[in-house]
């Protein structure tokens, strides 16, 4: 396989910043977005401040925001995320909007993502036995009911196994037609943004390598993926963050809590 040699260089941004920017770019202007915990909190802010000023954020605690929160938040219920919100009600309200097909995009993190975009955030089996994780939260609901969802996680063989041992949040199950067969009304994974690459999904429901991050080659991605990952005929380079996007991150996450 022909491969360009990549010379390691100091980059003007961190891997976390690249992941946040890549996630932000998945948000189209005007979309209704179900914002999850952690990195997506900041991806939503970056999208609002750059290319998607009309996006609306839904948070599972019951908050609906048309503006980014005025200061950095660590959880969706931080007082800054309540102040000047558009609406502040309850979980059933926002989950009802999700179930009734109003939400275009949802963001999720996970401990493991597999070949068909199924997510595990409940428990993982390792050489030392079972490790218990915090659980679904709203992830299972977002994966079940959003029009599409995007996953963020670190890239490693352990985190990307061929098959998750526990489906916390349903992706494409075992392939094409599975979601319809089990009764899920719509949706499925649109992208998996890792610390090395962006994976997307074919019509058959299986993930393929869509772009590699700057400084990462295709072999490195394949070598750190737990199944023989299909590679797009035109693997792209994940676009680097723009100055505007980096400013939006750094003005907000001044100490780099989420992105250092």
């Amino acid at each position, binding site marked *: 396989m022909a491969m360009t040699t990549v010379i390691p260089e100091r980059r003007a941004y961190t891997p976390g910043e690249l992941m946040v920017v890549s996630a932000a770019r998945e948000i189209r202007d005007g979309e209704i977005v179900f914002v999850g915990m952690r990195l997506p909190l900041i991806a939503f802010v970056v999208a609002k401040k750059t290319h998607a000023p009309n996006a609306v954020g839904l948070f599972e605690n019951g908050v609906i925001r048309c503006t980014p929160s005025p200061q950095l938040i660590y959880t969706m219920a931080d*007082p800054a995320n309540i102040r000047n919100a558009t609406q502040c009600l309850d979980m059933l309200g926002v989950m009802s909007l999700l179930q009734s097909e109003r939400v275009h995009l949802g963001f999720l993190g996970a401990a493991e993502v597999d070949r068909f975009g199924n997510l595990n955030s409940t428990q993982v089996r390792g050489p030392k036995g079972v490790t218990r994780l915090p659980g679904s*939260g709203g992830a299972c*609901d977002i994966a079940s009911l959003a029009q599409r969802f995007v996953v963020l996680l670190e890239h490693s063989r352990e985190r990307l196994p061929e098959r998750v041992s526990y489906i916390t949040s349903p992706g494409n199950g075992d392939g094409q037609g599975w979601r319809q067969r089990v009764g899920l009304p719509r949706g499925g994974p649109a992208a998996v943004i890792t610390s090395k690459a962006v994976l997307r999904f074919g019509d058959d429901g299986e993930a393929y390598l869509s772009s590699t991050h700057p400084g990462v080659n295709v072999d490195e991605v394949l070598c750190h993926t737990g199944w023989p990952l299909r590679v797009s005929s035109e693997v792209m380079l994940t676009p680097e963050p723009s100055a505007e996007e980096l400013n939006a991150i750094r003005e907000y996450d001044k100490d780099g809590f989420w992105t250092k």
Partner: protein
Amino acid sequence: MSKLLTMREAIRELVPDGASLALGLQMEQMIPFAAGHEIIRQNKRGLTLIGPISDILFDQMIAAGCVEQVIAAWVGNVMMGSAYNFRRAVEQGGLKVVNLSNFAVALALQAAAMGVPFLPTRTALGSDVARGNEFFAKIDSPFEDSQSGESSTRLGGRGRPPLREQVKLHAVRALSPDVAIVHLQRADRDGNAHCWGNFGVMIEAVRAARRVIVVAEEIVDGDVIASDPNRTVIPGFLVSAVVACSYGAHPSPVQGCYGRDNAFFRQYHEQTKTQADSDAWLQHWVHSVADRQAYMNQLGGCRVEGLGVKQHAYAAQTDFGY
């Protein structure tokens, strides 16, 4: 009739061993830590904890040995990740866990609040969360025309009879906690209570529970509550006890009263990795303080002041006149 009790009295009288308790219902805001700590001090045993996510309070009660079962969607430390006592208890087989999703927790409480045995939903189909789980059953919609997102008329095309497919659903079983404990900004002596901020699953949990303990930052006259009935989240007739407890939600925030003590959540993560460390943490922050006032004294005036509201943001006035 005044329902005012001290925290000690409310927990002693209303939370027996073996009770199921709904806590942390407003997600990461207004978590009733003071009530949880009193439960630990009174050495309650065999409890079932119910809640959508629990930002370290469940972990503390598990560390203290109060808990037999957890019915929740997520248990951890929201800004830091895992909660070690929960994790250890599950891995060592000492804790029964019923895994739900957030929506399923809300639906289970809402079903009980409405007095029906279940509510239907389209969430979690195909997920292992629902597999072998007593709170989920697969059902088909009893109606031909679904009210769901992709209506058959839209998909059916012009001039052709619409495709009629049976809509698959999950029934989520009703869940009635023995006690719901809610922390909020203000209540009157009868338990009529105002809250503002995000509600999470508080309102349905209060209606679903057999008994409700309201813990308020401030006790006000009934006139204050009645002046703004849209802000009333709990009518007093559902309430068994009212407890006045300023700073009772620390380290979680209470909108308009105090912010989130992020450093406290970080320190908890660092200081509770083993059972011995967790025991020491509980000794310092729970057992060695008699009540919330003593806890706040231990936290220190400087730190408490730092959490205060920096810039007030009052809502526009509302005219209920006629």
